[in-house]
């Protein structure tokens, strides 16, 4: 039985199709990433899977429970860390945990023991009796993760878990998430628009754009799909550079503002050939770089856009979704 199975899940808000017939299955113990720009439909997907939002069409089950027919079964099986903070700042960390434990009907003795263990796991036991409003962003996130785990869910949903955190805190959180997955075997589904986050954490990634899944595989396999290493050539005359690249070992050529991006296997061996070829044709080179492909390149490859340039406008779209969802 898969941990999550979604079949043609769809959600529309008026004329807008936020999630468009997406299907996937996630196996137990997997870390699965939904990667895409803001407004792509990630949070809407999570909301439907967590029974917060009714799908317009399609079906899904979590831990064997249908999201429409057995909401309580689904709710008991999942823990969620929402994109926006959902702590009560006027309560202490311990009280927030205790409130959660009572809502999930965990009996007193076990509740206290679990709270102590989890607060230790996320390194908050020293501050557990301080009001949450005195906490930093990273501490709040850790507390939310600990809270999400209190009722021993089979599946943990993390919606943009490291949004707005500094790099160091982000690294710490990644370690926590990896440890959770390894030690407790908990299935994790996370949404992110950080490429490195998806790359580092996820066993499999679904790239989602305009409500649909456009590619789904392991990060490595996705990166392999774009044809090996990425060579970026900056030149005063990029058209000429692009025109002169006709060698059979070039898998893919692309123009990106003022530069030419090539994909090829074993790029290091081909660099001398590229340089001598360009020099012999009298085409200038400003700079040349070689790197391993990232998921950013994969996203660009499939959508023709960079995920980063989406972020500003994507946020507005997300707000719109949010308002229409009410």
């Amino acid at each position: 039985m898969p941990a999550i199975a979604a079949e043609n899940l769809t959600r529309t808000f008026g004329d807008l199709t936020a999630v468009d017939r997406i299907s996937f299955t996630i196996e137990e113990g997997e870390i699965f990433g939904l990667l895409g720009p803001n407004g792509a439909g990630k949070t809407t997907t999570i909301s439907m899977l967590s029974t917060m939002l009714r799908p317009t069409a399609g079906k899904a089950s979590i831990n064997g429970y249908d999201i429409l027919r057995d909401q309580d079964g689904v709710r008991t099986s999942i823990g969620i860390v929402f994109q926006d903070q959902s702590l009560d700042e006027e309560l202490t960390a311990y009280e927030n945990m205790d409130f959660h434990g009572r809502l999930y009907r965990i009996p007193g003795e076990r509740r206290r023991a679990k709270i102590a263990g989890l607060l230790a796991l996320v390194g908050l036991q020293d501050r557990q009796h301080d009001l949450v409003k005195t906490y930093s962003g990273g501490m709040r996130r850790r507390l939310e993760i600990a809270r999400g785990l209190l009722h021993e869910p089979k599946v943990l949903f993390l919606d943009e878990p490291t949004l707005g955190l500094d790099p160091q805190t982000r690294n710490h959180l990644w370690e926590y998430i990896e440890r959770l997955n390894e030690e407790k075997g908990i299935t994790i589904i996370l949404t992110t628009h950080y490429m490195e986050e998806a790359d580092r954490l996820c066993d499999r990634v679904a790239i989602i754009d305009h409500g649909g899944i456009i590619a789904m595989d392991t990060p490595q396999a996705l990166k392999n799909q774009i044809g090996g290493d990425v060579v970026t050539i900056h030149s005063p005359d990029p058209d000429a550079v692009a025109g002169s690249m006709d060698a059979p070992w070039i898998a893919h050529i692309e123009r990106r503002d003022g530069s030419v991006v090539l994909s090829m296997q074993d790029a290091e061996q081909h660099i001398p050939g590229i340089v001598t070829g360009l020099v012999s044709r009298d085409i200038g080179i400003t700079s040349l770089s070689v790197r391993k492909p990232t998921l950013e390149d994969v996203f660009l490859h499939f959508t023709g856009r960079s995920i980063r340039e989406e972020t500003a406008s994507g946020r507005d779209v997300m707000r719109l979704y949010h308002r229409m969802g009410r």
Partner: protein
Amino acid sequence: MDIIYTIWLRNIKRYLRSKSRIIGSLGMPLFMLLVLGLGLNSVVQIPDTGQGYFEFIIPGIVAMSVLFTSVFAGIQIIWDRQFGFLKETLVAPISRLEIMLGQTFGGASTAFVQGLIILVLSLFIGLSFSSAAGFVIAFLFMVLIGIAFTALGIAIASRMEDMHGFQLIMNFVVFPIFGLSGALFPISSLPAWVQPLTMLDPLTYGVEGIRYGLTGTAQINPAVCFMVLAAFSAFMTIVGAWLFRKMSI
């Protein structure tokens, strides 16, 4: 039951921690009690009963405290929604009815305590202690007012986007309810055409009930007061629960 208790407990903890809110919401009723009550005491004498004005308005001011605190407590779920905490409650394997009832009893409890503080303070300023049974009757009516108007607040909050409409609610719902309730003047001294409006105001029955408990006289039969207010509380709880269930986040 344990879920309702959990949500009630959170409300109480938050209430006890917000010292500034407790003291802040005592200001207005105390001010009215002192300025109106003591200021007009020598000028105004209530017809029929011959009561002094101070003694007359104490039940009204107690009811006012309970009313304002409870409506505000109900509307507060908008904050919970805006700050995200409501999501944490809504995604738990519990019913929305349990959440709503927990909020209602929590709000009613804090409103009751606010009213109780005013009541105790009035004892020091000049309210004479009638009988223990009378106080119990007054308490009962305070609790009913608290439940009814917290539920009203939740019903309103379920239909509101954000706190912008709060002023509107205060001016066009809460103040008219208070003003028409006979908290500040005897119903019988109103012009004939206003009296039916007063009788439509559920708070009227709360004020009269508390007045009966504290001073032993009331213009409406206390049993009638109890039945009307209890029915209104039940009705508001049902409406509140229904609207809260339909609310999307």
